[in-house]
């Protein structure tokens, strides 16, 4: 969970695929500002790309918010959608699970690229994914 000590930095609406690129760039800029190293940045931004694409393609859109926690410095991203929700989260996180355009490595892959990964979903009630990485 994103704690109360994490400061909200920005929010990007997720309506269509152009917003996927906008969300990636926004997170990338925040990581640059805080001096993140190349590999850390690429891993985190790739994870962001997977979860926001999931929200746009399967969740009917939503929004992504970025938070920064100081001491220790961490970046947090929360991605929410208003879609149909995921009935079986464990199944959705398995490599090979795919409903539409993905290769089925998206969400499970994102989980491997970050320090923390939390997904909550309710059928009919949308999905929220929170990820974080230390900087």
């Amino acid at each position, binding site marked *: 969970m994103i704690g109360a000590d994490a400061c909200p930095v920005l929010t990007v609406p997720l309506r269509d695929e152009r917003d996927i690129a906008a969300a*990636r760039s926004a997170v990338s800029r925040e990581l640059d500002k805080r001096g993140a190293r*190349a590999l850390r940045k*690429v891993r985190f931004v*790739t994870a962001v*790309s997977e979860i926001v694409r999931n929200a746009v393609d399967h969740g009917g859109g939503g929004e992504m918010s970025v938070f920064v926690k100081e001491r220790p410095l961490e970046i947090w991203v929360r991605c929410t959608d208003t879609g149909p929700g995921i009935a079986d989260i464990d199944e959705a996180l398995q490599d090979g699970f795919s409903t539409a355009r993905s290769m089925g490595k*998206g969400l499970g*892959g994102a989980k491997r*690229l970050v320090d923390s990964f939390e997904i909550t979903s309710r059928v009919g009630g949308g999905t929220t994914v929170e990820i974080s990485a230390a900087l």
Partner: protein
Amino acid sequence: MTDAASIYHVENVLLVAIRDNITDTDIITLQEELSHRIVSDGARGVVIDISALEIVDTFVGRILAQLSSIARLLAAETYIVGMRPAVAMTLVELGMDLSGSRTALSLSHALRSLRASRLA
């Protein structure tokens, strides 16, 4: 073709530079256009420069892998050039090794390799 990628035809090789802001639709359009151009231009090689891409996620990775397979069926070899080291490390963690594509560090390496196999 959108401005998210440009295709140049030079000596039986199609050179493609992908820009960083490419969208999912753009890259699918690129895949279609390249498939047609391989045949219409009689290309024997395709070199895709991804050095402008800050990241390659599973979607873009899948399209690149498919493109290589399509090109091979159309008798052209695909080289992916300019991959950043951090992108390569992340792709492996995602379980995508792009094993169907040849890779080269730079455009000139790819062209040398295509010439060596007499495709260019």
